[in-house]
Structure formats: structure tokens, C-alpha cells
């Protein structure tokens, strides 16, 4: 139970940490854009698995965003390996944005 709580607590921290990753074109962070689908903190394997998408396939800044996600996590979780899995299902839609994300884009 304690391990489960630790996992939840860290996934919450990572979620907030990823708010520092900003899409350089749009100027909004990837959490508020609704691009982060899943965060899996695995203490035993020492991995942090991020399942995420992009607002448009073939986005020219896609690998910069992924690089940013990995470096941001690695900066705080120094003993963990950040793994980013890019997925296209479910397809990203504006409904996935947070209230703050929608406000930032005037949606």
C-alpha cells in the first residue's frame, strides 16, 4: 500500500514537472495541451514511462518536445530512466486540453 501511495505521489509530481515542458511553437505546456496520456512510475525498474501524443503527426518540433520531457524528468529523478512512448491512439483532440490550455489558445 505504501508503495502504491509512493507511486501515485511521484506520478503527481511528474505531472506537475511536465508543466515546464512548453511546445515552442504554441507557447503552451504539454500537460495543459492534453498531450500527456499516461505516466508510469516504476520504482523497482527505476523507469518513468510517459505515454504521450503530439497535436499533429510529423510535428517538426516533436523530437525537441520529447528531448525536453526526458531532460526535465532526468533533472529531478536522477536515478531513473525516462522512457517516452509516442502514440497516435486515441487521436489528440481539443477536448483533451485543460481549462488553462483552452484559455491560452482562446479556444
Amino acid at each position, binding site marked *: 500500500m505504501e508503495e502504491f501511495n509512493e507511486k501515485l505521489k511521484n506520478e503527481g509530481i511528474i505531472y506537475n514537472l511536465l508543466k515546464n515542458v512548453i511546445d515552442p*511553437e504554441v507557447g503552451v505546456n504539454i500537460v495543459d495541451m492534453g498531450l500527456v496520456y499516461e505516466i508510469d512510475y516504476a520504482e523497482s525498474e527505476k523507469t518513468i514511462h510517459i505515454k504521450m501524443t503530439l497535436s499533429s503527426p510529423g510535428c517538426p518540433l516533436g523530437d525537441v518536445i520529447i528531448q525536453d520531457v526526458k531532460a526535465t524528468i532526468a533533472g529531478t529523478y536522477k536515478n531513473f530512466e525516462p522512457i517516452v512512448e509516442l502514440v497516435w491512439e486515441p487521436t489528440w483532440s481539443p477536448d483533451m486540453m485543460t481549462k488553462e490550455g483552452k484559455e491560452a489558445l482562446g479556444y
Partner: protein
Amino acid sequence: MQSLNTTSAPHSSVVIPHYIFAALSFFILAFLIIISNNSLIGHYFQPKLLAITHVATLGWGTMTIFGALYQLLPVISSSSLFSEKLAKTTFYVFGLGIILLVISFWKFSTGSFFIVSASVVFTAFLLFSTNILLTIQKSPKKDIETISIAISAIWLILTGLLGLLLVINFTYPIFKQSHFLFLTTHAHLGIIGWFLFLIMGASAKLVPMFLISHQLNRKKLHLAFYSVNLSLILFSLNWMIFHIEIVNYIAFVFILVGIISFITYLYESYKKRVRKVLDIGMKHTAVAFIAVILPLILGFISIYKLNFNTTTLLQIIIAYGFTVLLGTISSLILGQTYKTLPFIVWLAKYQKFVGKAKTPLPKEIYSEKILVVQYIVYLIAVIVLTIGILLSSKLTITTGAVFLLVTAILFNINVFKILLHKPKIEIKA
């Protein structure tokens, strides 16, 4: 995994020189219009106007497109550029060719210097198209956008070939018919085949990406692609060979259908956009597509003549060319430079710091204020110049050209501000 493209993008040293050459050409273009305001009145076939036209089409328009395409084609085709060395070589050949050709037109002394100049430009077209076509050939996806770009590269070769033949014809007459028929074809192979096709292919991909819009009706793109191609083939063959009046009417209908179909695709993207607020770069782009209506009307009058007298018709033809080059194409370039160049420079200077240090955003490395003023001054310049050309008013043309020069100066300030940007980073705690 979907291909992600900053890794397949060429080195910034391949792309950036094109933007520098283009920005300086835009400045020279405005300056040349001021010192030869007479050239925009009367017949369009006069040395200085031909020189100015080639500064606009080659030095400004095509040079920007070459650079931007080297950066964007990997995004559009999911395939890295065939050869960066070839791209660099092409830049030098093309740059030299443009300078020689513009001098040749300005002085208009026919002969071997003129022919060599045109040959150098044509060689650059061949090198560029080879690079583009071989990049697309190894691309895993060949959608309508990618095919449009491939076709535009082929039309570019034909534009250059006909241009070279026209230049040879000045010294060694090879055309049995009036060279104006070939000149008209050359101009439209360039305007429709090269610029329009390229713009259609690139914008169909980039506009929805910048606006973040999904689930668009791609049938509109297919219709636009086939209609515009068919129109250009009909126009070209009819001007050079058949000379049947009704064919011009049919070709005009096809181009109208094609452009309307394409604009409705972009409008759908605009209506379905997630990013409600348009930045100035996208506003410039929107103006470019709205402004297409002007050359369509002026082009329609040029073909059907209506009841205008010859003097007025000649001004309409010049205004037609002007609204294509300095209305639609320039507005698009002015806007899209701000959507591409800051990112290219930003990636070159900041990519290694991403996630490790706080970096400015790409849009923070140029002056937004200058961009806003540039946008307004540009709109004034185009409106005043178009009116000046249509009214054959030298004073109005000079006034408009001064506004254009101010636009060019502001644009150059921002371009060099971007290029000379010194990295500012704050290391994250």
C-alpha cells in the same frame, strides 16, 4: 514511431544563407522600384521592369522557397534531404546566376553574357529540382502535398528552360512566332506551375499544423491539384501552339475551380482551428490568400480584354503581375519567414539546452513590435502601389514604393535580429 523531423532537418548553414539573400533582395527590389518608377507604366516588356521582376521572382520569392523547402520538405515527406552538399552548391550557383541575370536585364545588352547568366540560373533550377525529386523519391509517403511539391519542381525546370530559350532568342532568333506568346507562357509556368503548386503543397500541410485543425476534407485538395495542373497545361499549349480563344476561357474556369477549391480547404482549416488567436505571421498568410482575388480579377480582364483600351490594358497586366508577386507571394513569404526562420535559428542555438535550462521561445528572438508595424506598412504599400500602377501615377507609385522600402527595412532588421541572436539561458536549479 512517426518520423520526427528536427533530426532529419538539414544543418542550419544549408538553409540560413537563402533567407539572408532573400531579405536583401527584397530591400533591393523596393529600392529599384523607387529609382525606376517609370518602369511600372507603359509596356511590361522593358529592361528595368524585367530586371525588377526577376529580383522579385528569383532573388526574393524563389530564394526563400529554396531555403524554406530544404527545411520543410523533411517535415512534409518524412524523409531527410537527399544531399546537403548539393543544396549548398545550388545556393552559390543560384545566387551568382540571379546577380548576373538581373544585371543582364537591367543593361539589356544581348549576347553571350546574357545567355551565360540565364544558363547559370537554369543550372541552379536543375540542381535544386534533382535534390527535391530524389528526396521525394525516397520518401515513404507520397501524399498529394508531396506530389504537388514534386510537380512544382518539374514546372520550375520548364519555366527556366523557356526563360533560357527566350534569352537565346534575343541574340539568335529561334522562335518563329512572336516571343510574347512564349513570354506569357514562361511567366505562367513560373506563377502557376512553380509558385502556386509549391504554395499549395506546402500550405496544405503547414496551415492546419500551425492552426491545429483536424479532419479536413482532402477531396478539395485533390480537386485543386488536378484543376490547376490541367489549367496550366491548357494555357501553355494554347498560348504557344493552338491559339484557340475558347481554350483560354476553359483554362480560366479550371484555374478558378482549383484556386477556390484550395481556398475552401484552407478556410475549413481556419474554421476548425484550435488556436483561435492568429499571430501576425498567420495574418500575413491569411492576407496572401485573400489577396489572390486581385490577380484573378486582373488576370480575367487581361485575357478577355473587355472594352478597355490598350494603354489601360497594359497597366492592368502590370498590376496583375504586381499583385501576384508583391501581393500574394510576398505576403506569404513575409508571414511564413516568421513561422520558420526563428525556429531554425532557435533549434540551432537552443536545442542542446532544452530541458536543462530555461530558454526563450522562438517568437521571443525577434521584435513583435517591428513585425506589427511591418505588417501595416506592407498593406499600405501594396494598396498604394496597385492604385498607382492602375492610374499610371508616378507620384503614387513612388509613395507606395517608399512604404515598400520601409517594409523591407523593418523586415531586414527583424531577420538580422533573429540571425544575430545571442543565446540567453538560465540554468535550471
